[in-house]
C-alpha cells in the first residue's frame, strides 16, 4: 500500500542515519544528498538498496543519478509504490 510523503521521508531518514550516522532530523526534503548531506556515491547505493527493501520498490542503477535531493528520492519511491 502506498505510503504518505511523510512516512517515506521518515523511513528514508532512518536508512540514511544507519548508513552515515547523519541525524534523522537533518534529512529534509530539500537537502541534496551530495552537497548538503555529504553522502558519496557508494553510500548512496547502499541507501538505495536498503530503500528498495524497506519500501518494496525497484530503483534501477540508471535512476540513481537522478535522485539529487531527498525530495527526488521520496517522490520516486511514492510513484513506484503507485
Amino acid at each position, binding site marked *: 500500500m502506498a505510503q504518505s510523503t511523510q512516512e517515506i521521508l521518515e523511513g528514508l531518514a532512518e536508512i540514511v542515519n544507519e548508513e552515515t550516522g547523519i541525524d534523522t532530523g537533518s534529512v529534509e526534503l530539500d537537502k541534496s544528498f551530495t552537497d548538503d548531506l555529504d553522502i*558519496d*556515491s*557508494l553510500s*548512496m*547505493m547502499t541507501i538505495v538498496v536498503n530503500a528498495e527493501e524497506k519500501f518494496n520498490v525497484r530503483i534501477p*542503477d540508471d535512476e540513481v543519478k537522478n535522485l539529487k535531493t531527498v525530495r527526488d528520492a521520496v517522490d520516486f519511491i511514492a510513484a513506484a509504490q503507485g
Partner: protein
Amino acid sequence: MTVEALRPKGSGSIHPGTGASHARIWGLGGFRPERVVPNSELVEAIDSSDEWIQERSGIKSRRWAGPDDTVVSMSEAAARDAIAAAGIEISQIEAIIVSTVTHPYQTPAAAPIIADRLGLRCAAFDISAACAGYCHGISLANDMVRGGSAKFVLVIGVEKLTDFTDLTDRGTAFIFADGAGAAVVGPSDFPGIGPTIWGSDGSQWETIRQTESWLDVRDQGLGHPTIGMAGQSVFRWAVWSMAPVARQAIEAAGITPDDLDAFIPHQANMRIIDAMLKQLKLPADIPVARDIAETANTSAASIPLATERMLREGEIPHGGLALQIGFGAGLVYAAQVIVLP
C-alpha cells in the same frame, strides 16, 4: 548397446584419462613491482585528495610496473616463486593457465611465452575472466588435475592495468594497479579445492569494459583505449549479488562459516569488502584480506597476491580453509573454498 555398435567402423573405444583423486594448491608466489605510488602522486590529475581517495576506496598506495615490467616478466617472477614454494621442479609443470586482460597482444596469448621463459613446452593458454580470472583458473586446474589432463598446473593472475588506465578518470585512476600472483595446483590425498560456484551476467557487460572496441579505435581514429567502470553499479552487484555466491561456496564445500580461517575476496575496493562482510555476517575473528590498502586493485592478481602476503606475514595458517571469491568485468564471478598451502 556396446560402444562398438555406435561406431561407423564397428570398432574402437577411447581409453579414459586417469587423474588424481583430489587436488590442492601446493604453493603460491607473487610479484609486486618495485615502484610504490602514494595517493599524493595521483590527486592533481583528478582534482582530489589523499583523504578523498582513502574514504572512497581504502587505498593508501599502490605498485606500478616499471618500463621493463611486462605481463610476461611479472608472470615469470610470480611463477618461479610459486614453483619454489610448492617444492617441485619447473619441469613437472604440465599446463599453464594465465588470467589477464592486459596482455598487449590480441594474439598470441601470454601463457606460451611465459612457458618458454620457464623452459617449458607444455600446454599453455590464457583465459579472460577479468577480476574473477584467478578463481576461474583454480577451478579449471582442479578439474584438469583430477581429470588427468595434467599432473601439475600453474595458474597465474597477472595485470599491468596502468597500460589501460586513464589517470584523469576520477572513477578508476586511483583504483587500478599492477602485479602478478601464481599458484601451483597438483594432486592431493585430500580435497584441497572445494566446488566452484561461478556464473555470469552479460546483460551488464558495459559496467566494466574497455572504453572502445579495437574496431572503433581503428575506424574512428580514437586514441589508446582504457578500462572504464560504472562504480555504483559495480558496487551494488559486488555486494548484494556476490554475498549469496560466497555463502553458496561455503555450503558447497560442506563446511560452515565457523570452519573458515580466512576470507579472501577480490581486492576491488575496501568499501566493497566492508559492505560484503556486513551482508555475509562471518564470524568476527576470521582474518579478511585487506591487501588493497597498499596494492590497490590488481584484478586477476589480487587474490593470489593477498593470500601470499597473509601467509607470509603469518596472518593465516598453512593448512587452513580460505574462502576466495573473484568478481569483475563480464560481469563474471567464481568462488570456492581452498586449503591454504
